[in-house]
């Protein structure tokens, strides 16, 4: 089985985010990036499929700060190849990313065999112009389904039976012919941990393959007027003090409402 996994770096929202001087993009000076969380699940699901059915996992990503470490981590976890598109891709939206990826895959037919599954995170926190997976499926003319949390691959019938989440814990089972693009919400198992030593050894023994791709005229398509931090509604009354004072105050609040 040929598994293509598209990965992307996104701002780590645990950190403070600042708007840049243009007022329309994030200030990149202190920005810390991490692998998009649903992409991490897409990688895990790819590795689980490989373990079960054999084949190769190729990860694809657009150059970004701290990407190399994420790619070497993917290799250390069990991916076979890592390809990095070189260039400045800040502000790249889903539709343009899909266009670049589909042209690249089409010009590399060995990556687009009849038993290909393309996995990527179902969504990312910066998908303002739309998620990558449906855009890519459209460009390639492949079937698509998103919010996937489980995949049963049937090599005989060249089909996958996938689980999609709706709401309230309700899920649906869908049948998808291969090749297909799947947007992964969560892998069947939590993403595996890989020790730093293994990542270091991957850095020594394996290579990230750089690829140049033609740069499109525009990476994003939406006219952003302004980017800003939401005003804190001032709704929450913040309770301060020592931890035990805080605990005391919380119990007081709960008692008043007969909740304690």
């Amino acid at each position, binding site marked *: 089985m040929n598994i293509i996994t598209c990965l992307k770096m*996104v*701002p780590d*929202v645990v950190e*403070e*985010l600042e708007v840049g001087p243009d007022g329309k993009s*994030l200030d990149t000076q202190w920005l810390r990036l991490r692998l998009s969380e649903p992409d991490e699940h897409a990688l895990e699901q790819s590795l689980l499929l490989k373990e079960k059915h054999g084949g190769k996992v190729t990860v694809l990503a657009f150059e970004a700060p701290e990407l190399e470490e994420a790619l070497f981590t993917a290799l250390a976890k069990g991916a076979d190849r890592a390809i990095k598109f070189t260039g400045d891709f800040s502000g790249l939206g889903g*539709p343009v990313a899909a266009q670049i990826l589909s042209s690249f895959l089409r010009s590399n037919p060995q990556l687009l065999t009849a038993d290909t599954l393309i996995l990527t995170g*179902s969504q990312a*926190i*910066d*998908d303002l*112009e*739309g*998620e990558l997976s*449906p*855009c890519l*499926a*459209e460009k390639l003319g492949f*079937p*698509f*389904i*998103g*919010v996937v949390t489980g995949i049963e691959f049937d090599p005989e019938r060249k089909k996958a*039976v996938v689980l*999609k*989440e*709706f*709401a*309230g814990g*309700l*899920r649906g*089972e*869908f*049948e998808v012919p291969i090749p297909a693009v799947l*947007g992964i919400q969560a892998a069947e198992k*939590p993403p595996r941990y890989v020790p730093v030593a293994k990542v270091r050894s991957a850095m020594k023994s394996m290579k990230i393959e750089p690829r140049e791709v033609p740069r499109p005229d525009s990476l994003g398509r*939406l*006219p*952003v*007027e*302004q*980017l800003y*931090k*939401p005003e*804190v*509604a001032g*709704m*929450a*009354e*913040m309770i301060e003090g020592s*931890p*035990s004072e*805080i605990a*005391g105050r*919380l*119990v007081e609040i*709960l008692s008043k*409402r007969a*909740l*304690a």
Partner: protein
Amino acid sequence: MKTGILVIAEQLRGKLTDTTFEMLGIGREIATVLELPLHAVLLGKGSASLFSQLGAADSVFVLDGASLEMPTADAIAASITNLLNKKPATLILIPGTNIFLGVGPILSGRTEMPFVNFCKDLQIKDHAAILTCQLFGGKIFADIRLPENRGIVSIYPGSFSPEPGRSGRVPPVETIEVGREETKVTFKRFIEPEAGDVNITQQDVLVAVGRGIQSQDNLHLAEELATALGGAVCASRPVIDQGWLPLSRQVGKSGMIVKPKLYLALGISGAPEHTEGMKGAQLIISINTDPKAPIFNVSHYGVCQDVLEILPLLTEELKTQKVRG
């Protein structure tokens, strides 16, 4: 031909979702300002009987398509594309839900109308539609001005009140043949929610844990607090994905919508996917080390501290209180 605003109604197992009425409410508002007709769109056979609930729209289009019973994104997009050939529209509102994920980008690709995701507010300023979208887990907002007010907008569930979208008026209805869409993805069956040990939607008190709980070994701290409060433990997505708690305990977009008397959010950042499921709680108290965590925007009380430090103290204090009577 006069164009209009389309609201794509969403139904799940024969019931229109709240998001549908949220879209109708805001759709009505902007349609009035822009002096455009507002049409609601019902997808597929079996949904036609729902039209009478869509009176906030000027009229209802029922798209007759065999494959639209539990539609896939490409089937929905194909039907709407066909509809647009017969009934042009400038602005299309779609639900930002799991069911509709993918519809916007596909429809945008096929119609060349721009698509805007994560919209939480829509205003008309000097006849221009300004969309406010929440990015980066709700930490940053982006304002987008749609050229010529033309576009497909995904409305984040819970962004508007559904009430203005409900109407007793019976709207005129028109059935539109959009043809059978050849979709390669076939719906097989629903898988019911796993019957959990606890039904979190029925609890008065919920102790919710997020990433800040750090490890499964710390879960007992939350369990103990829940016991002291007579409630149950629930969680945000990362905790469920780690397998620390079953799916039945998940609050948010894919999980449950809960409205308890008390919701204690412990180490939860408050991404829109989570707040969608809990912002209707009567009292929300949040503890998080990040003073800018979006969870504080929907909380009544906030504590900027490490949950692991506060949790045992709070449980202890509650027990002492009980002894004191």
